[in-house]
């Protein structure tokens, strides 16, 4: 089954670039014979480019030229141009790009209303073309940030379009949320306006916070430089490393952080691409982790962050990997799931891990976690045989947990601080199609979401009263 990633905006495309780079590396490590197989086909087309870029797709046999199934959208050219001049230039063709020059000025309304309208036809056409090349399109991924104008505004416009044009295809969104110290003053506006769209049109959202990524990068630097490890770390095993980089210093400032997000997406889709004893497809993630339509925000954690190169040092105990997945150091957003309520939890394991390892660790970790009363055994598990590059095993944990509530409350507070003073509002309201009601509806949508989490939190720790069963006449 095929997944189609969309990168929208600067952040989205920078992450996207890392993603394609690491995806190629992962497949190259597994696919030794150079045959175009089912695993490759989920992210790449195989094109016969001998007679030029417009050659036909080749569905079987040797790999000729791999083209990413992707759409790269940005209203500025800088990032996309860089990608097209870099080592990945042959992986994309012009039919997959939509760019403009002036950017969105960090204004959701410009991205959503102006560019949305302007590029709608173009986007739909390119989308249909990309979908035509897919044997069976299962899922769209949108990668974007919430705080700016393009990723946030145009990104959520695209989300709407996807629902209209392909209602049966799942929509997963990886959203980078702005921090409190974000230098874009209007980021709370952009984020809340975008949240309404995510609430209503996304199947699953994986919120990411830059602080968490930054802390992970720091932790790794500290470990490497402290000499505590006593041995070299396998460079290619770092969750922050790019392909072929023999140095720990990254070329571009956000590369290390973006690689983490790229690894998240690779791990998320690993069981759909590679074989294993208990497969986990993306539609299963949506099915099991979303008990009520709007409660679809998932906290992700990745482990391990690195592997030691020295084979004489025993690999970190498997159980430690499971413990780490439930430690805040490995989460991609700052939140406290252990002290909040789990609605559902998924564990996607890769590598040489068997069902007994899974069971043992679930039994061990369960007692310290609070699960909602109607889902006491709420675990979804997957076992994929192929580990990530540089590792013997890895774990991605996805939690649907009320711990996202504080993040949303903070966002709401920052929004209200600006909104009460009507600060910068005119930049938005002067855009055709924007009205005060867009703001009030957006904040109302966010408040409702927070309220849903509140209601669930209220049940935590309360007495467990199981509903009485149906009585049957004997």
């Amino acid at each position: 089954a095929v997944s189609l990633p969309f990168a929208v905006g600067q952040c989205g495309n920078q992450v996207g670039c890392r993603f394609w780079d690491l995806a190629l590396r992962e497949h190259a490590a597994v696919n030794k014979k150079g045959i175009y197989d089912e695993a490759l086909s989920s992210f790449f087309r195989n094109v016969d480019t001998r007679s030029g870029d417009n050659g036909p797709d080749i569905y079987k046999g040797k790999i000729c030229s791999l083209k990413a199934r992707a759409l790269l959208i940005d209203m500025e050219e800088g990032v996309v141009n860089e990608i097209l001049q870099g080592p990945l230039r042959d992986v994309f063709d012009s039919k997959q790009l939509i760019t403009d020059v002036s950017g969105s000025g960090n204004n959701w309304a410009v991205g959503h209303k102006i560019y949305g309208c302007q590029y709608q036809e173009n986007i739909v056409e390119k989308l249909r073309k990309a979908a035509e090349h897919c044997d069976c399109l299962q899922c769209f991924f949108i990668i974007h940030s919430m705080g700016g104008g393009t990723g946030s505004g145009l990104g959520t416009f695209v989300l709407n379009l996807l629902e209209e044009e392909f209602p049966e295809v799942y929509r997963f969104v990886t959203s980078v949320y702005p921090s409190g110290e974000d230098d874009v003053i209007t980021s709370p506006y952009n984020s809340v306006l975008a949240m309404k769209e995510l609430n209503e049109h996304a199947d699953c959202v994986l919120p990411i916070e830059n602080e968490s990524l930054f802390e992970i990068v720091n932790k790794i630097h500290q470990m490497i430089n402290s000499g505590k490890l006593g041995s070299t770390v396998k460079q290619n095993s770092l969750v922050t490393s790019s392909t072929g980089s023999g140095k720990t210093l990254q070329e571009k400032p956000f590369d290390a952080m973006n690689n983490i997000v790229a690894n998240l997406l690779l791990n998320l889709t690993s069981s759909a691409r590679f074989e294993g004893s208990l497969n986990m497809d993306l539609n299963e993630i949506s099915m099991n982790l979303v008990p009520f339509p709007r409660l679809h925000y998932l906290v992700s954690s990745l482990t391990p962050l690195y592997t030691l190169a020295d084979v004489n040092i025993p690999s970190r105990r498997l159980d430690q990997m499971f413990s780490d997945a439930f430690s805040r150091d490995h989460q991609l957003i700052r939140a406290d799931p252990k002290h909040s309520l789990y609605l559902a939890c998924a564990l996607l394991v890769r590598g040489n891990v068997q069902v007994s390892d899974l069971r043992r660790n679930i039994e061990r970790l369960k007692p310290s976690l609070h699960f909602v009363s109607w889902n006491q055994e709420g675990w979804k598990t997957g076992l994929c045989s192929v580990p990530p590059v540089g590792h013997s095993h890895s774990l991605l944990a996805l939690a649907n947990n009320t711990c996202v509530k504080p993040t949303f409350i903070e966002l709401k507070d920052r929004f209200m601080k600006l909104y009460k003073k009507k600060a910068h509002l005119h930049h938005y309201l002067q855009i055709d199609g924007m009205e005060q009601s867009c703001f009030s509806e957006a904040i109302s949508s966010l408040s409702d979401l927070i309220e849903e989490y509140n209601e669930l939190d209220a049940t935590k720790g309360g007495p467990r009263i199981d509903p009485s069963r149906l009585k049957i006449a004997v």
Partner: protein
Amino acid sequence: MSIVTVQLGQCGNQIGHEVFSALCSDIRGTHGLCSKTENESYQDACKERFFSEEESGVPAARAVLVDMEPKVISQTLSMAARSGHWKYNSHSHFCQKQGSGNNWANGYCVHGPRHKEAIMDLVQKEAEKCERLGGFFTIMSMAGGTGSGLGAFVTQCLRDAFPTSFLLNHVIWPYGTGEVIVQNYNSVLTLSHLYHSSDALLVHENDVIHKICAQLMNIKQISFRDVNQVIAHQLGSVFQPTHTAGGGSGYSRNPLGDLLEPLVPHPEFRLLGLRNIPQMAESSLAFSTFSWPGLLKHLRQILIANAHMEEGIDWQVRPPQPGSSMPSTNKPLHFNTSIANLVILRGKDVHSVDLGSFQDPSLYTSWLNPQDAFNAWKTPRAFNKYEKSAALVSNSQFLLKPLDSIVGKAWNMFASKAYLHQYTKFGIQEEDFLDCFTTLEQVISSYTNL
């Protein structure tokens, strides 16, 4: 008579492969411990039952492989072919690309009708290859979306297309602490639907087999492959050829009928449990000897005390005193009442075995004569390197507690309405759930009041 197997979903296909592997390895083994003619009879009967002859000379399993995503079938086909001793027919499989998303409604309401023709076409082709069709055996898990939902739909289609054939569903019950979060919903939907179209449900519980792997087989890092191989061994011990009591000198010609007719006397009681003894790591086999009285004593207590294996049996449990009329609520705690039982003995000295203890009327409800409630099959041909082995297929209260637990958890979740939107989206409404709960509460009540 031949049995056509339908392997459904990841679990069904993974297990199916282990089953045919085990059957093939058993007939090729040299540990039959019986006469050459006996062995040849056994091999021929097994081949007729489970394999068809192909021009290549490599026997092809009488099976249809169905899945809504391609990876597992692809693996299954190539693993079988690599064995060199058997394979699957290269055309007898059907798969799609997108999976069922662990969604029973998707499997049943969408994939089922959409692919009915193609799947039944394959089944028809396999059935036609059989000189005499003995019935169908489906393998599925009830926790996911394809095996469970599409499996329930296909079972119905089989019933409609072959109304007079025997239809036995092998159903895997998932680990209690979750493999799939909506597994209890999928289970309730599956069980209630199968109850209406299948002849019987032969059940394996992952938790139980896992314990066998850990405690009896001493496997340290238990994989699904290990679990599936134990299941395959247990199934083989039931379905490999045997002589039935009144069957004359040859091997039974009607394995499914011989199993189902005595074990399912009443349509309300279709749940069959399976126990096998002895079970151990192959490395220990050479050092162990068993006596029939010892094996049967353990097997009988496993039955009575509702134990899962030969370790940890509660020997305190006794059947109620004969002669006293006891309302079911006064029956000794933990005593497992049986409706009917089948014991299958394989190996050395089977002819001399005394099975009287299994005919004790106090083990059974009063509906059938003890002679009818209990049946035995035997063969001197040893199975899978065990000098002596005994299997028990039981229609009793074995599955009552696990069933009650599943229904309870599903009901708890249903009361909160969690996940229902995922099902209604594909056509299963709240009323459909309620019907299924009602069916199963009825089954629970019936088994409780034995």
